[in-house]
């Protein structure tokens, strides 16, 4: 999740929200799924038409493309209307069309973005597919056209294709709220032999928020179930971190291997309490270089 792919939206509550913008890859994947679905539907009806002898061999191709056309266009517009900006493919990929102004999606914008898809991609696309040496110039032109249209999203921040720009919409990743346990609460007590770990203020001066949150990630991963190999690797990682932390903060007492997890959890809690307190006093520490960087105040 890079900073560039985030879109800032200011709701009336005045608390800015950030949406992750759907990239080209995930949208192509959703598009492909939808094409498979509509294609399957069209093939099924086409077989029915053939079985009922409604089409002659000469007109079969025209009938097939007409069926595909008549299933495809209403499918996109109707499913995005019914599911508030999601088709089946978009639901699978967990992406969603939203209005650029953050308001309700209007019927017009959904219809226009799907009609433009027809002119942007499908029609020139079928021309490319029916590429033949006799009609070389139109084929090459439509190939250039398709490539140009596919490149449009790369040149704007919200990755909007032409239809999105006209409709005033863009595609976001639907955020999935999943509440993880608070790591400062899940402390396991150190073993009987070891008294509780104590950290002094000067020992907590070294690290910043980045290191704290990296440690949080490591501690979270130790609660996950894992195989024997992964468990061993995880133990080695913990040992390495303990060695590094002890050296950095001059923690004199030795930490026994079975207490490594408990040590890191205790350190996490103490460090977080310290950093959050500093932050309340206006001293935000981004990372361990906070002392070297010029003071923000």
């Amino acid at each position, binding site marked *: 999740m890079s900073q560039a792919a985030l879109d800032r939206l200011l709701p009336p509550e005045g*608390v800015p929200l950030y949406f992750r913008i759907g990239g080209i890859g995930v949208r192509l994947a959703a598009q492909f799924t939808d094409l498979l679905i509509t294609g399957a539907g069209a093939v099924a009806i086409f077989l029915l038409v053939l079985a009922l002898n409604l089409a002659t061999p000469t007109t079969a191709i025209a009938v097939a493309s007409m069926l595909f056309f008549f299933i495809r266009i209403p499918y996109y517009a109707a499913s995005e209307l019914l599911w508030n900006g999601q088709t089946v493919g978009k639901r699978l990929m967990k992406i969603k069309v939203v209005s650029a102004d953050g308001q*309700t*999606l209007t019927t017009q914008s959904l219809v226009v973005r799907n009609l433009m898809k027809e002119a942007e991609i499908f029609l020139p696309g079928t021309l490319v597919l029916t590429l033949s040496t006799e009609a070389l110039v139109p084929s090459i032109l439509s190939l250039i056209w398709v490539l140009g249209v596919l490149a449009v999203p790369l040149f704007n921040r919200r990755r909007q294709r032409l239809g999105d720009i006209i409709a005033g919409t863009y595609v976001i990743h639907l955020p999935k709220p999943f509440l993880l346990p608070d790591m400062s609460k899940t402390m396991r007590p150190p073993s009987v032999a070891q008294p509780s770990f104590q950290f002094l203020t000067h020992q907590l001066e070294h690290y910043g928020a980045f290191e704290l949150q990296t440690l949080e990630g490591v501690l979270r991963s130790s609660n996950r179930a894992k195989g024997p190999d992964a468990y061993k690797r995880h133990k080695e990682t913990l040992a390495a971190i303990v060695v590094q932390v002890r050296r950095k903060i001059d923690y004199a007492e030795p930490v026994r291997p079975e207490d490594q997890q408990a040590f890191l959890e205790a350190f996490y809690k103490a460090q977080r309490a310290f950093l959050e307190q500093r932050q309340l006093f206006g001293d935000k520490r981004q990372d361990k270089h906070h002392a070297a960087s010029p003071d923000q105040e």
Partner: protein
Amino acid sequence: MSDTDLIRSARFRQEREDDWRKLSDLVDKAESQGLHRMSFQEARDLADLYRQATTSLSIAREISLDRGLLEYLEALTSRAYLSVYAPQQRLGGIIRKFLTAGGPQAMRASWRVVALGFLCMAAGAIAGYFFYFDNPEWFYVFMPTELSGGRGPDASTEYLRAQIYGEDASTGLGAFATYLFSHNTRIAIFVFGLGAFLCAPTIFLTFYNGLILGVFYALHIDRGLGWDMFGWLSIHGVTELSAICIASAGGLQLGLAVLFPGQRTRRAALRAAGHTAVKLALIAALMLVVAALLEGFGRQFVQDRSTRIAIGWGIGGLWSIWFVLGGRKRS
């Protein structure tokens, strides 16, 4: 673990966690069932809890360094925002509304651009007509071979007459599909879609389509088949060529928004123009389907010249009545 053992941000979280979970459940419900199916109590709770969650998020950004919590709150409030401020719109009656109000109103509101679309086509047709009488060789320059079907300055008059009144081999569904996916539907999609590129492709394509019409018509007048051709074209052409002109009006509207955005940004102007342009495109699509029905079924069954003209222009008249009278408010 007692409360005093907890650090400040953990206590903050503990006090509000239940509300967040309740909000999460309500958001799931709003997304799966739609806001309008929820009870008053639930809808009110959703809005209240959402506002509380934004406050929590704003505080958590300041006081908490728990990444798990921050990511959760970001995701939860974003999702809740979407269900509070961008809910599913009601879909009841959108087709009826388009047919009785939106469509004809859009046509009337953009009559200048529609006239411009017809003008492009007419200018092309007149130019094509004079090109042919200047030198019939022009016919081969403008007319795509797959469209002419053997008709041209070198074909005999009998052949041309047979083409106008002859029985086509294919009728019914196959013919319908073939006509719908013939040249004209493609042109209609292109003139609409390419309009955003400063109008030029739309004007060019519409003009070119007019040229084809002009040389084709001039060929038949040259052979004394003018009225027969008029009948042959009228039955579906009135609808079909109008559809192309209307689609090109939609495209022109997009292009004009890019060219002359006025006080707005180009992007905002394009978006505003999209609202009426899409209605024009839908009208054009509807007309193209009707035209394909007329071409696939009607033209084969009606062989009489006057009846063909009457049907074609009669339906054209019905379209105009719809455009002119539809969706007017009673005063």
